[in-house]
């Protein structure tokens, strides 16, 4: 997909000018094939400011399996560039040994086998150990920044309206956060939490919808290691489109590039020597943004769940991608002198849960939040014979399971399931618990609709969603991955414009072509429209799993992907 040479031109060549990339260490560590906590945390202190970044935790506080995507296609200028490099290409690009701990953490290659070897990743108590170790080494030189999508994604977070995550993150003591799924608890709940939050909640692009005035703080100034640091927040720009706008009717978002530039300029005018954008734009949007605005030294990216072992450099701006679900913590040491960034050291720290010892205080706090829900969390619904995962541009097996549940429990011709990037993985042989189902479905608009749609409307929906993922201009990409489809196959050409990407739509149960004029019974969930009727998706999935007992899913072959 991409040659090392092309990548060097795009990224590493530029980092060589700034100097001191972290490339060598990651590769060297891979060669040892053994891990200790000291190795994972080994980092020679550098410069005078340390940024610690974690993002898209999605309320995963216990160690989990999370398979990185095998398909993550880039279009336009992002084609073939990280993060749109996966599997064996990714390993080659970053000189990672197949079968190594890094190969397991960063790719989908041999995932099931390597998961057996290296175990679960993440766990907020392990993250706490890492954060405390860096804080002990760097003290007042450190900032801990949370990129958002923190409060949603689990059974407990759902049943506490994010309350468990607020409590646990307060223990971790971030200096600032930004947001996306947080707002799906409703604007009043967010305001209630933010009013009590002991750190900054930042969004340069969160505006009052009526008067178009800033609704939240945009910038927080810090002094770290004698350096004036401005942290500017950028929430997910397309919240009212990708998520139900009626849940936060008084707010408006958008990229608002000019506003951001004004805020950067204002921070510089106030004397900021280092400007950090804590972003939930998504990687491709941030890459474009970095080339269009000036004065930002570091963009801590989020939303698209990418984990990259090296920064991507655009002009004078470093882009950091710290993964998701608590699998990684980024440490970026910066040398800021004479009003500018002179060099950096970077390490994407993989949180191997069997290697990094849990922080006792955080473990106790996590257990306390889970205790009232213990019976339900652990309730076993069935077993899976297949690897269940979601992440990737097209259907993952967990989505196929959800689609099967929708098709069979709702007696539908076709099932649609949203292309969320959150959702953890289960290994073959594992029990499926209520907690596991909520890890893939836990959100505040779970109603599973059953509706008739014409073949034409189905085509229009697929075209519309595909354009939100594959528009060549990242500023016009608003969504998650492609909508997952059950009961219907199709062909997609990602390089075509809207209206001509989707073809060969076929009803799988008959093998017939979808007729634009004919109506089909469609079951789906997570509609952004208010008053969507139907049972919660987790009840539909539970009903299906308990009925079949054991889940077995072949790799989905019904989507033909073309890039022409």
């Amino acid at each position, binding site marked *: 997909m991409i040659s090392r040479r092309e990548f060097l031109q795009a990224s590493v060549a530029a980092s060589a000018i700034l100097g001191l990339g972290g490339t060598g260490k990651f590769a060297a560590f891979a060669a040892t094939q053994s891990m200790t906590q000291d190795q994972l945390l080994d980092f020679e202190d550098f410069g005078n400011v340390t940024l610690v970044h974690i993002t898209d935790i999605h309320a995963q506080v216990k160690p989990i399996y999370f398979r990185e995507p095998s398909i993550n296609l880039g279009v336009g200028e992002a084609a073939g560039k990280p993060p749109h490099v996966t599997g064996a290409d990714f390993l080659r690009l970053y000189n990672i040994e197949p079968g190594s701990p890094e190969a397991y953490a960063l790719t989908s290659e041999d995932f099931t086998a390597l998961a057996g070897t290296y175990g679960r990743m993440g766990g907020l108590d392990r993250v706490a150990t890492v954060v405390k170790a860096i804080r002990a080494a760097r003290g007042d030189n450190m900032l801990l920044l949370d990129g958002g999508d923190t409060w949603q994604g689990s059974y407990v977070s759902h049943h506490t309206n994010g309350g468990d995550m607020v409590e646990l993150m307060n223990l971790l003591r971030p200096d600032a956060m930004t947001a996306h799924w947080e707002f799906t608890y409703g604007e009043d709940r967010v305001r209630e939490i933010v009013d009590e939050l002991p750190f900054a909640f930042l969004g340069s692009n969160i505006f009052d919808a009526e008067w178009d005035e800033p609704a939240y703080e945009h910038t927080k100034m810090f002094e770290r290691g004698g350096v004036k640091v401005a942290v500017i927040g950028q929430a997910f720009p*397309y919240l009212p489109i990708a998520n139900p706008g009626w849940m936060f009717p008084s707010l408006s978002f958008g990229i608002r590039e000019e506003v951001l530039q004004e805020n950067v300029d204002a921070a510089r005018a106030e004397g900021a020597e280092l400007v950090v954008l804590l972003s939930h734009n998504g990687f491709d949007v941030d890459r474009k943004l970095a080339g269009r605005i000036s004065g930002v030294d570091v963009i801590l990216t989020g939303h698209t769940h990418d984990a990259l072992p090296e920064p991507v450099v655009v002009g004078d701006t470093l882009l950091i991608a710290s993964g998701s679900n608590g699998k990684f913590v980024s440490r970026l040491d910066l040398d800021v002198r004479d009003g500018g960034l002179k060099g950096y050291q970077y390490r994407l720290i993989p949180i191997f849960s069997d290697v990094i010892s849990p922080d006792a205080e955080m473990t106790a706090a996590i257990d306390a939040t889970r205790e009232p829900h213990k019976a339900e969390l652990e309730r076993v619904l069935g077993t899976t014979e297949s690897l269940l995962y979601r992440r990737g541009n097209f259907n993952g097996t967990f989505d196929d399971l959800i689609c099967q549940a929708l098709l069979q429990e709702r007696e539908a011709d076709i099932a649609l399931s*949203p292309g969320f990037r959150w959702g953890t993985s289960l290994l073959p042989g594992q029990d499926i618990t209520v907690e596991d189902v909520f890890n893939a479905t836990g959100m505040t608009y779970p109603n599973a609709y059953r509706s008739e749609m014409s073949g034409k409307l189905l085509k229009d929906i697929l075209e519309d969603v595909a*354009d939100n993922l594959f528009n060549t201009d990242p500023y016009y990409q608003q969504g*998650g991955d*492609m909508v997952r489809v059950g009961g219907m196959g199709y062909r997609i050409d990602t390089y075509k414009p809207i209206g001509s990407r989707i073809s060969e739509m076929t009803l799988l149960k008959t093998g017939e072509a979808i007729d634009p004029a004919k109506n089909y019974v469609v079951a789906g969930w997570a509609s952004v*429209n208010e008053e969507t009727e139907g049972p919660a998706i987790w009840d539909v999935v539970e009903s299906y799993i308990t009925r079949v007992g054991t889940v077995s899913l072949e790799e989905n072959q019904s989507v033909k992907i073309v890039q022409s």
Partner: protein
Amino acid sequence: MELNRRQIMALAAGSAAFAATTSLSFPVLAANDAQDIINAFTGGAEAGEGALTLDAPEIAENGNTVPIEVTVDSPMSEDDYVEAVLIVADGNPNASVATFHFTPMSGEALASTRIRLAKTQDVIAVAKMSNGTFAMDRKTVKVTIGGCGG
């Protein structure tokens, strides 16, 4: 929770899932009279770029009320000012959106409003200067059903 038969077979009323308020047709060619309206405004004169800035969201949060703003770089003096700014939408059933009129007394040539866009299309702004020249800017605003983000 037990799903009963009535719940299982219930069809959502209308088009609950994707009740898009917008028509889901995709831009192929501008089919309305946007260009004719622009030609009438400019008298066929060429419009330059740069002096006029049209701000609009890349993707509309609500196609029924899309905020737009136009600013024209002009001294707004007696000798050199912006007379009018025309706004058209090339994919709406009716391309005309608005014309803002200015005088030197306006102080600055700035206007903002909210417009309705039926589907993904270009919004085009053309400014007519007192010296007889024209300036233009255009933005593509995407109107999407959305709903699968995350």
